[in-house]
């Protein structure tokens, strides 16, 4: 792996559950939703690291912790070797956000509908005090729009978000993240709201920007197929833990963890000849509540290979089974 730009160590985020008056008087202990429960990973320069999982697995919370929209309960985050876990004051956060930006899932709700494209892109410049005169800022805005292929920019700066198509809106959101020339971008489901025909366009653009501007991405998604296409590395999350991690293609072609297998088996593929076959899904039950995490391996109640006395008792460790390919399961190679 190349020199890590971002390093996350034993990161945890627990959200307290509100207690009623009665239960606090009874002295019942405070309970927590363990959204992110001790994850460790590194992202190398100009690489794309995908976090994959079902809703509620903690992937978006991880993204928010990294851009400092949330403060971690425990653990550390390093950016280019510097510990940024306790970045808190306004100045520190501002300096940090010049380097780390985020793209949200829904470009319609992440933009102020009463702002024109110009204002949307000018806002980060004003916040960070970049460009002294309006003319300077205008130049930067035009450059950013050209970069995301919204051309000619003068036709678009006056438009409101509702006057753009879905793909254009998401490209403006990308331009807003890029205008500060960040080193790291958290892309939280950036294409899942887009039509297939333009999804590829946005992914291609993000790929191109990676090469041209040296951006590094954390790509948060539920879609294994786009992760294979876009990402170099992949981590599969389940109930706040990384259960498998490795090169994206390797994880998909040779999954080690039973959960990854189940996820992969569930992905629909455009192969109509299989339409009358009822697919085997090697998983049972539903995702348990993150406030009530099962003991032992947290996947064991749903795992069809789980062994009594082992999986329901002992928490497995994340072990490197192949070069750079990790899994957190007692039974790798034994099921």
């Amino acid at each position, binding site marked *: 792996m190349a020199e890590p730009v971002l390093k996350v160590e034993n990161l945890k985020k627990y959200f307290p559950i509100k207690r009623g008056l009665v239960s606090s008087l009874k002295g019942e202990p405070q309970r927590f939703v363990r959204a992110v429960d001790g994850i460790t990973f590194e992202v190398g320069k100009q690489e794309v690291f995908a976090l994959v999982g079902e809703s509620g697995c903690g992937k978006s919370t991880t993204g928010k912790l990294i851009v400092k929209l949330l403060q971690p309960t425990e653990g550390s985050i390093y950016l280019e070797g510097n510990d940024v876990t306790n970045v808190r004051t306004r100045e520190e956060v501002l300096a940090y956000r010049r380097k780390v930006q985020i793209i949200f899932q829904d470009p319609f709700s992440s933009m102020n509908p009463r702002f024109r494209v110009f204002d949307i892109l000018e806002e980060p410049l004003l916040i960070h005090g970049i460009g002294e005169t309006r003319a300077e800022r205008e130049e930067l805005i035009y450059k950013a729009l050209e970069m995301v292929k919204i051309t000619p920019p003068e036709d678009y700066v006056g438009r409101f978000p509702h006057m753009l198509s879905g793909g254009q809106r998401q490209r403006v959101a990308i331009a807003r993240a890029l205008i500060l020339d960040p080193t790291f971008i958290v892309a939280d489901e950036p294409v899942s709201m887009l039509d297939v025909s333009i999804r590829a366009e946005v992914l291609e653009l993000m790929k191109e920007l990676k090469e041209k501007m040296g951006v590094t991405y954390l790509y948060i998604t539920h879609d294994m*197929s786009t992760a*294979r296409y876009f990402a170099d590395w992949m981590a599969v999350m389940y109930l706040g833990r990384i259960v498998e991690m490795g090169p994206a293609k390797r994880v*998909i072609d040779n999954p080690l963890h039973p959960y990854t297998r189940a996820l992969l088996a569930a992905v*629909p*593929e*455009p*192969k*109509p000849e299989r339409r009358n076959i009822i697919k085997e899904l090697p998983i049972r039950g539903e995702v348990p509540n993150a406030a009530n995490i099962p003991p032992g391996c947290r996947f064991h109640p749903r795992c069809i290979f789980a062994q009594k006395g082992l999986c329901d008792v002992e928490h497995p460790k994340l072990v490197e089974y192949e070069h750079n390919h990790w899994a957190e399961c007692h039974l790798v190679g034994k099921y």
Partner: protein
Amino acid sequence: MSKNVLEVKNLKMYYFTNKGVVKAVDDLSFTLKKGEVLGLAGESGCGKSSLGFTLMGMPTPPGKIVDGSIKIDGREVVGLPEDVLRKEVRWQKISMIFQGAMNALNPVYTVGYQMIEPLVYLKGMERDDALDRAQKYLELVGLPGDIVYRYPHELSGGMKQRVIIATALLLEPDVVIADEPTTALDVVVQAQIINLMKKLKKELGLSMIFITHDLSILAEISDRVAIMYAGKLVEIGDSEKIYYEPAHPYTQKLLAAIPRLHEDVERLEFIPGQPPNLINPPKGCRFHPRCPYAMQVCKEQIPELKEVDKDHYAACWLL
């Protein structure tokens, strides 16, 4: 050869808005055979959901059926008065599985209460008999029967979607329309629901129109596939033909835009531009402004559906 349960001919449904007439469904013809699943795909705004609601006899206002015919099991339903539609057609002859199971159930009533409503009011069944029947159908979709006494908030997303499916089947309709039935669900739950629909298709011989924007999901269940673009049908045929020998450039491009799970793709294709405004659709072929092969004739005349192969039709001047 099995008979047609649904015949749609020259169907036109326009929205009469302040800004102008939106031609959301424009001159569509197709048939659905008994026991067959017809997949209907297209980008958002192509009119696929509008078509679903129109077939149910309830185009969303200000939409109106302008022309054409819809025959369900041989009976013409266009032009039937609303009370006849409600009493005799909707839910009994044709039913719908809605998009977004989360919002399709009423949170203040138990599952059973809302499921038996059509049985009690349309069929005049006793409440207890109706509840028995609801339980039978819940078991059919893989849920415990006592779910009838639960409230929607007690169920997970996948369970709610199963309730919606059971409700749509309760009156044993001839045709079921499934409008994006898996969109808001996680991958594993989505695969379970698709499996369920395959099972129902096999066991009950369901005739279904499956609407989605996701061609991968469509391939999992459809016997035939229809591709819509800007209110028109551009291609229709057996699934194998559509996926492996697509004739229309739009279908070809859509398929090339799908990332594959087990294959490496150097570059994904995409379709530049965006679907046209349906108030003022482009003259000629509606796809011509985005089509890489557009010729002069494409800009002037609307192509008709032509038979490319046996039971495989496409509307394109290149053919």
